[in-house]
């Protein structure tokens, strides 16, 4: 696992964003250049003064865009250099309470939009930046403002924003039609075609109805949407119906990701109730993939190790897990499909991972 949060000490008092340069000269006034380093850490100097980072070498950190929080004694690696998997957390507040939430929400909101915007502007060329929460659109105006300013200054960047899509209204349509939103895709969860079941899974009455409104606005805005469905026991057998629903009403989505459960957050404590062993009963998942494909919806499987998926459906199982939180079982060494495989989440129970793989 690659640590994203390191301890740090800094001269400054207020939090600041900077890009770390271990080699060469600084290109940008927001860069910090290396002062000294050893195996345990590195010290940098930038316009906010000196700061020292523990637990990573200067080489590891070179090019990273970080948020230094002196009061907390922490540094967050917001955009890791060379990594295709960077996600910015804009709020921890949420108006849903999903049964399997991997990042349970908090009541308080720590507003960091300004700092995150500075970070985006320092991103490497052509980076895809993920945005998640909490529910980012609880702060819709700040969010859209940030996205628009960043993409105006940096048209090479792209955003992927996770949202429950319940806070868009008709007035947003013309705003979202702006051409810069071609660089933005929205990752939107939908768990079932049956309103009551969806509402139950997300822990919010009326969520389904509001979500349908949101989808209508997004269609009219020509928005790019990736639909996301986490597989849990309650929706396992409802997946074919969901596929029919998607084909009839949400055919506009660019992709439909069916995601295996993460053993973290709420799902950890509820694992035995929620986790579906897809090896034991793949049929509803397979039928959902078949129906989606029939109707021109690009379906994909996230977090399904390839060897656990029947061969006819293996092409749907993609390497979905971000590098920093991905692991493989020991037998995976010998597998020819490892580079196309999701592997497992770092926090997936080892005894399970070790026993379920069959190298291809």
């Amino acid at each position, binding site marked *: 696992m690659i640590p994203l949060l390191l301890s740090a000490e800094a001269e400054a008092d207020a939090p600041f964003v900077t890009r770390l340069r271990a080699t060469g000269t600084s290109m940008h006034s927001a860069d910090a250049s290396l002062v000294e380093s050893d195996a345990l850490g590195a010290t940098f100097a930038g316009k906010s003064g000196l700061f020292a980072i523990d637990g990573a070498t200067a080489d590891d950190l070179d090019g990273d865009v970080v948020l230094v929080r002196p009061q907390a004694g922490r540094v967050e690696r917001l955009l890791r250099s060379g990594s295709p998997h960077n996600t910015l957390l804009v709020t921890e507040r949420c108006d849903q309470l999903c049964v399997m939430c991997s990042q349970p929400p908090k009541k308080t909101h720590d507003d960091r939009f300004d700092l995150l915007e500075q970070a985006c502007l320092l991103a490497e060329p052509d980076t895809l930046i993920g945005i998640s929460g909490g529910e980012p659109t609880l702060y819709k105006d700040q969010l859209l403002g940030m996205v628009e300013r960043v993409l105006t200054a940096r048209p090479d960047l792209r955003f992927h924003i996770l949202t429950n899509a319940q806070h868009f209204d008709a007035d947003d349509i013309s705003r979202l039609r702006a051409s810069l939103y071609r660089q933005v895709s929205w990752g939107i969860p939908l768990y079932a075609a049956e309103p009551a079941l969806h509402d139950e899974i997300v822990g919010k009455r009326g969520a389904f109805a509001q979500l349908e409104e949101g989808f209508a*606005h997004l*269609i009219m805005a020509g928005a790019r949407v990736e639909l996301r469905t986490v597989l849990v026991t309650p929706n396992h057998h409802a997946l*074919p119906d969901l596929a029919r629903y998607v084909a009839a009403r949400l055919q506009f989505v660019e992709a439909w990701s069916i995601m295996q459960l993460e053993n973290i957050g709420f799902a950890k404590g509820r694992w035995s109730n929620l986790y579906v062993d897809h090896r034991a009963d793949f049929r509803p998942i397979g039928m959902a993939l*078949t129906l989606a494909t029939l109707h021109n919806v690009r379906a994909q499987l996230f977090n399904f190790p390839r060897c656990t998926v029947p061969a*006819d459906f293996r092409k749907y199982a993609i390497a979905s897990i971000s590098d920093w939180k991905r692991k493989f079982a020991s037998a995976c060494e010998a597998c020819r499909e490892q580079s196309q495989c999701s592997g497992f989440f770092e926090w997936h129970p080892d005894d399970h991972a070790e026993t379920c793989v069959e190298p291809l």
Partner: protein
Amino acid sequence: MSFLPLRSRALPDGETIFVNDSGRFFLGADGFVGRLIDGAETEGDRISLRAGGHLIEDADSLAFAAHRRAVARRIAPAAPLDYLILVPTLRCNLDCSYCQVSRVNIDRAGFDWSEETLAAVLATIDGLACDRLKIEFQGGEPTLRPDLLRAVMEKAERFAQRQFVICSNLQHIDDELLAIFDRPDVFISTSLDGDEVTHGRHRTKDAETTSAFFRNLRFIVDRYGPSKVSALPTINAATPPAADDLIDAYVAYGMDSIFLRPINYQGFARKRHKQAREQDEAWRSYYEGFIHRLIARNWADQDRVLEETYFSIGLRRIFQPGRERHVDLRNPNPMGYDYIVVDHDGAVYPTDEARMLARSGVIDLSIGTIEMGWDSEARELLNSHATNQFDPACMRCVYQPYCGRDPIDDLARYGRIDMPRHDTAFCRRHMHLFDLIFRLLYTDCEKVRYSLAQWLRLPSIPDSFGEVMA
């Protein structure tokens, strides 16, 4: 509450197919049809119609948005030019009885591209704004001019995604040609009418010419694998080969796709085959029998998927609009935009059929020249009639969302484009094709469903291909 404008058609065996403007469909049994006519739908009917996107309630803004988008998706936009059909020479070393292209003998002068035409073709390639390019070399026999093929290919080197298809009779292959075929971006398209006897009848004629072709085809397939070559048969509806013989001929060379083309008599073929102006009932039953043979053989040997190209195009258009690009069947059918044909004399035509019509003296459908451009009045005129959207018959037809329009075919057959749609060969062919597809979609037979799933590139056989309202 408001219904969508659902259209319906009674299928030959009694049930009724319903299709809405976006192309979503279902099958209605008699009970449902009766209730619908009487305005006596049950709450259950309404729930199903709503779920399928056939009934839209005022408050259902998602259904409205999804429907509007789906209707828009059915309308093919004209993409920028990225597909050139080039005829570097009209000369040919064969004289097939149904030659589509009005070829000239191999030793005639003045039927190859001039220096100026070549320069204009190359300049056109330089000016293309697309990032992928497909070039098809037709003839005549384009391999008579390998120098021209090379000049064009070199010019197209800058396109990261490029494909060159050389349509050749494969009569003669030498080292110079092989050097061209060796390129991974080169593909070969040829004609294969069946076994040696059938193939020889209209094409190669004498035994030596015939066996040269089969020798060369074998050589190419052995050297490059079957994915390098595709072939098209030309079928005389009066004397079609046995379906299995034709399939065997293709399977023998590892080719799984067979495009069963009825002869479209034009050019010299028009003069020699006067009797068969229309595809008749015989052709349609031959076609149907052929599809059923493919289904049976796919089931018997699941290691390969045999398909009839046009059937698959029609099938995929029902479910997957916009997924693939077919210039054969689309609506509108923009002409002279995303692809053009450049003849041996530099004249630009919207389609290869248009070129043949001009050559056979029926009507000049050229829209310009490669030197002077083709953004012409003739092109505008053709395009204003290149859609089925406003045709009174098509507007009432269940198959309109999947069907297309081909004014060139109308001109070829009837000399006019304002025929009542149902009286055209185009319409009869597509009505039959889609009737056949829908009958198969609602067949219980596992063998049929297996082939349909394969042709639709599905990972498994779906529970059903479409809803049924009982």
